[in-house]
């Protein structure tokens, strides 16, 4: 018997942003509670108010340095709607898609090779000093080189379409501000076949890992849940840039399907809890207990009917076959799904580079102004919702952002608890390697904690004072 104790993993490493995990152990060393806390605070939803509508895609992308393009494009789509534009010119839409595929490619590569690979290659319990990208490069130089060059390729696609590798200005309300020159197109085409090959190799690596560690994967933060994403209109194909909302339950049955994303607020409610700056969304009709859901690469593999590029589609069928066509619930299978999406993105980039529309000169469409705009995309980490209202003076009066990491909040917390119970309960000695297992579960969602803490307003705050004997002496609550 020991005293009850709390273990804190702070900060959680190899994720974007700042968070911590607290694990409460009882007197028998059994895990009583385990939570992922988001301890940073951003405030974008509040301070964007009063800014001018065309500034929004440039300002809100500063939420993130890893996938700013996602926020840039989601905000631009919302501003298209406010500018009264329902359909972009072919050049504008294809340039934005190219930007987005470059973004998803580089972000997924960053996550898989730089953040997750050290765990997968060296083991979750490997010494901490070994679990980093430099060791990956030292021990697997060819793999390390590909990681750097694939990410570079995606970043250069972003630079060519947005003007800068990070925080560009390409997407503007109603369109895009530049097309793709022939010189740049030819530059990218010169190595696209190599990128396809490398993406296939990376996919094989992720797939083999999942299958070779089937028992570990099956029992590591795996639990049934609902899944949500946008899918392509009409045929339900994977579409990272545009589509309608689809949600499936853990058996793969439809909760809702092909609902225009402009109705997201009828379908989803955001819940607030006292111990985190991050909200907890759930599907309205199912309620907070049963309505939580997961988003992201694996969720998209579960929701998409098929993929419209041949190599990724074959890989999608392969992944689905392992769960008999039903949703795959394995948290660690996200890596496999992520690499299928990298292959899809590279195939899409090749398709677009061969499309002469990218050299078109009709870049911007105008329309009749509206007061409200909603833009939704599938960002690398999952579904991303941007919602704004703008007054007659072009100033923002309302902003609501639901980012992928927020969608996954409940899922990540459950994964944390699941792994903590399985790997820490009953242990006399808690090692750093054991604690890394908890971080591995969080990392599999590739969370972006910076993006997820954008809200500003009165948060419910609870302060509790405990005496030495563990009894609560006082409690103060500031409600929202």
């Amino acid at each position, binding site marked *: 018997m020991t005293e009850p104790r709390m273990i804190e993993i702070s900060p959680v490493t190899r994720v974007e942003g700042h968070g911590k995990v607290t694990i409460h152990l009882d007197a028998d060393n059994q895990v009583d509670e385990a939570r992922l806390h988001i301890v940073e605070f951003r405030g974008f939803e509040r301070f964007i108010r009063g800014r001018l509508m065309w500034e929004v895609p*440039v300002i809100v992308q500063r939420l993130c340095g890893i996938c700013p393009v996602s926020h840039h494009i989601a905000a631009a789509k919302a501003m298209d709607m406010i500018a009264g534009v329902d359909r972009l010119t072919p050049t504008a839409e294809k340039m934005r898609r190219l930007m987005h595929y470059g973004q998803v490619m580089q972000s997924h590569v960053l996550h898989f090779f730089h953040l997750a690979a050290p765990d997968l290659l060296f083991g979750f319990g490997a010494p901490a000093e070994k679990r980093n990208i430099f060791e990956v490069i030292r021990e697997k130089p060819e793999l390390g080189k590909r990681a750097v060059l694939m990410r570079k390729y995606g970043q250069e696609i972003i630079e060519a379409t947005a003007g800068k590798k990070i925080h560009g200005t390409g997407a503007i309300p109603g369109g895009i501000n530049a097309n793709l020159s022939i010189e740049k197109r030819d530059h990218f085409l010169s190595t696209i076949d190599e990128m396809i090959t490398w993406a296939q190799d990376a996919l094989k690596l992720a797939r083999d890992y999942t299958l070779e560690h089937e028992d570990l994967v099956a029992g590591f933060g795996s639990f049934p849940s609902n899944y949500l994403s946008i899918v392509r209109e009409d045929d339900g194909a994977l579409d990272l840039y545009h589509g309608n909302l689809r949600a499936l339950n853990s058996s793969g049955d439809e909760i809702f399907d092909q609902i225009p994303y402009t109705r997201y607020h009828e379908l989803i409610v955001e819940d607030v809890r006292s111990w985190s700056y991050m909200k907890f969304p759930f599907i309205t009709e199912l309620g907070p207990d049963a309505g939580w859901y997961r988003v992201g690469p694996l969720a998209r593999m579960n929701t998409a009917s098929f993929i419209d590029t041949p190599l990724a589609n074959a890989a999608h069928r392969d992944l689905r076959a392992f769960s008999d066509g039903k949703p795959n619930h394995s948290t660690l299978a996200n890596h496999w799904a992520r690499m299928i999406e990298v292959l899809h993105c590279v195939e899409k980039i090749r398709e677009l580079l061969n499309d002469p529309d990218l050299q078109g000169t009709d870049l911007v469409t105008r329309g009749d102004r509206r007061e409200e705009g909603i833009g939704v995309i599938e960002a690398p980490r999952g579904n991303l919702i941007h919602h704004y209202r703008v007054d007659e003076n072009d100033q923002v009066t309302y902003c609501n952002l639901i980012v992928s990491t927020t969608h996954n909040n409940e899922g990540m917390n459950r994964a944390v608890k699941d792994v903590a119970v399985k790997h820490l309960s009953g242990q006399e000695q808690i090692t750093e390697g054991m604690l890394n297992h908890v971080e591995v579960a969080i990392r599999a969602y590739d969370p972006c904690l910076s993006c997820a803490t954008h809200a500003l307003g009165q948060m419910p705050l609870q302060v509790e004072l405990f005496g030495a004997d563990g009894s609560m002496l006082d409690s103060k609550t500031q409600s929202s």
Partner: protein
Amino acid sequence: MSPDQKNEAGFTFTIDGVEVTARAGQTILEAADEAGIYIPRLCDHEGLRHQGSCRVCTVKAGGRSVAACTQPAEAGQTVENETAHLTKMRRDLVEMLFHEGNHLCPICEASGNCELQAMAYRLDMTDATRFPYLEPCRAVDATHPDIALDTNRCISCGRCIRASQDVDGKGVFGYVGRGIHRRVAVNGDNLADTDAEVTDHAISSEVCPVGCIIRKRVGFATPIGERKFDKGLIGHEIEEKRK
């Protein structure tokens, strides 16, 4: 040519040891421009009357500090422009302009076209300002259908005031306040209350050196790489005359 020798073209003086020819009535800055020597400036603008208020164009003429945009050139004068002392003083002035306003270059639509930003690059203002930020909190005036004002970015150069009065024949802008509180404001309750039009010279993107006067719905339409100062340091067009 001896310093006091004058021909039909005018007279000569030197800037940093380089002989410059000037005509009677020209300022040091005008003569320098024609000779392909760039003297940094912010409140001065071609086509507008000189004001000499920002002091970024300060040079040493005959050992005295003067504003090159208002000081007449004189025959035989010895002018110092690019000295370590003057560059530091100019950088300090620009730094103070940054700390007085909210100059958030990463999200400002003037970025790449902004003379303040370009001047900071030219003067090698690579560190964060040493002065405390004043962080003004002035509401954006977006009441006009085609123009918006974000005076948190205003550097009080007064170029819009002179352009409106002298070129447009209006009086849309004027100074209000005294001392540290002096700033540019509109002559009315807000911009919609004035006779400002988007076609006014005062509203044109070349007059406002920063992102204060904004023509609505055109922000970020110019891609990165094609903006004014993506192609070279501020003043490079003037310096290229000498090459």
